[in-house]
């Protein structure tokens, strides 16, 4: 589904990302871990063509993302608050995204219905604009909006951060379900090793922009990751 070739990104201060080869097959739940500055968000931004690669390219379903925009209809993402429109209510935002992705109001309503327990009564009909919601609730809105319009690739940057424990557990269910049953390629980054090993089929560890581990998740993965980050 996603192929990375000789991808690198450097700023004046030096290289921040350098991935020679990476293939993410369709339907894989892909976890990305690494300390701050490891290049996780840089990688996701390149994948969404929000920044230009210094060398190399990424192909999504054989479309080179920085040359054609045809990847947009089947790709969705929630990176940070810049993916939210502060002066809209959550409902308006969902419908807006829906319209951009060719879904009518009924389609969006049907989707939202499935996630009622995820929202936990704090999102819909609250008479609040997105800018006035708490960080955790904003994240809930962003994540669910990324599911609108049957995307084939979903990119979530640190989706577990700021969420309360109940929502974290529900989100894990949602991610597993997307990859396992609907064949969606899900890319998730996280600082929480436990969550990410639980939802991912495969985990890649980035350090200073380089892939230093590429693991198929097994019972031993969490231990291995913990040992790695503890510096042993």
């Amino acid at each position, binding site marked *: 589904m996603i192929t990375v070739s000789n991808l690198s990104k450097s700023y004046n201060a030096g290289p921040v990302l350098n991935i020679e080869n990476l293939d993410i097959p369709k339907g894989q739940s892909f976890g990305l871990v690494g300390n701050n500055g490891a290049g996780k968000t840089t990688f996701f931004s390149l994948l*969404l063509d929000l*920044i230009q690669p210094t060398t190399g390219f990424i192909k999504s379903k054989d479309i080179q993302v920085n040359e054609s925009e045809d990847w947009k209809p089947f790709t969705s993402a929630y990176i940070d608050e*810049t993916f939210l429109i502060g002066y809209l209510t959550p409902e*308006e935002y969902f419908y807006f995204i829906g*319209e951009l992705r060719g879904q009518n109001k009924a389609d969006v309503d049907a989707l939202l219905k499935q996630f009622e327990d995820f929202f936990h009564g704090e999102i819909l009909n609250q*008479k609040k604009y997105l800018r*006035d919601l708490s960080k955790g609730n904003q994240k809930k809105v962003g994540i669910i909006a990324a599911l609108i319009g049957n995307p084939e690739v979903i990119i979530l940057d640190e989706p577990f951060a700021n969420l309360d424990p109940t929502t974290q557990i529900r989100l894990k269910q949602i991610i597993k379900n997307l990859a396992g049953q609907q064949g969606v390629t899900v890319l998730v980054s996280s600082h929480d090793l436990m969550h990410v090993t639980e939802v991912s089929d495969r985990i890649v560890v980035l350090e200073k922009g380089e892939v230093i581990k590429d693991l198929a998740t097994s019972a031993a993965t969490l231990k291995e990751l913990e040992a790695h980050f503890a510096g042993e």
Partner: protein
Amino acid sequence: MIFGALWMIASFSILGFGVYFMIEDVLKMEPFQVVNQVLIYYMVFDLVFRYFLQKMPVMNIKPLMYLPIKRKEIVNFAIGKTMISFFNVLHAFFFIPFSIVLIMKGFPVLQVLAWNLAILGWIYCNNFLNIFVNNKDVVFFAVIGFIVVMIGLQYYGIFDITQFTYPIFNSFYAVPYLAFIPVVLAGVFYKIAFTYFKKNLYLDAGLSVKHDIAETQDYTWLNRFGSMSTFLKNDIKLLRRNKRSKTTLLMSVLFIFYGLLFFTGSVEAYDGPFWRIFAGIFISGGFLFTFGQFVPSWDSAYYPLMMSQNIRYKEYIASKWYLMVIATIISTIISVFYLYWGWQAYAAVVVGAIYNIGVNSHLVLWGGAYIKTPIDLTTSKKAFGDKQAFNAKTLLLTIPKLLLPMVIYAVGHFTLGEVFGFALVAIAGLTGFLFKNKVFDIIEKVYKSEKYKTLAAYKQNN
């Protein structure tokens, strides 16, 4: 911002030195008396400007609260910070040169100094007043209403407030020790501001962020615009729900009245016939200019979202274009009162509107595509002071938008008469329509080629 500040300082200084001679030579009146008369308006306008532009220190207080600093000191620090603000210093650049001229003209030094002290007191009264008035729209509109009514009453000679305020301001000069009254008053206002501030120095009181009650709105009546309605709905919400955009709307209403300066003949320099077109362009195009020059910056806060969604640029641009067109038409309809100053006045507005819609709307959107200033929708404070709002590039772009139609009109006016002049401008506007798709194509290309730079620039503030 720096440029704007220097410009203000320069004009205030020049005015300070020159106003005495201007009043004496041009108006043939006693300069000091005239200044004392208009001081009341000076002070009220100062308050209005502060309300719009002066940033309250409240925002930066939060981090101080967790540090081992006494609450009293935090409040004193915050209020003290407003005291050295540009909005207070600026006045010195007018009053000091003016006083120098007064003394040179033989006014007694001590009395002039007392008068200055009084002014200083009033300015600080305004400064502290603004602290507890800030963000109370009711008070603000009351002040605006007061100004309009007073100017109106004075203009028609019904009631002249300056007759009552003139003796007050003059008394500080005539009886120097009275100058301590405003100074003491400023001290009292400081105390009030201090108490008010200290009482509200809690996260859930004065420092809490007010939440608007939001209603979900569908605007289904806009669906007739087809797939463009997606953006149109969003843009209307953007305009209605954000402070910054509301300021823009207010400014465009003010532009409608800008033409009064021209058609009432109150400013001599504007008497040439081609100035009509200049006025007509501004009257009908206030919104077009103030809103259009910041497309796509209005969407800067969520530009990454827009760029990762499958948006159709044409519809995105068309939506903004329609808004500008609709606003121009509405302004033109409201401006029908210009008929009072002859059909030429309103004809200028109408052809100005045609030219705005046909030509300027394209130019403005095109220029906006290169402006990469992120817009903070939640505050109105930067609407005027923004360094990009008045930079050289924007000014340069404004020239063809205004000069060209004036030249076109002048060509017609001085050959076959004013009707021909109006017709030429209208034809130029209608011709512009033909290029709409072409221009939209170009703008789309600019959006695409500038995409990464724009994203990076918007990120600076987010």
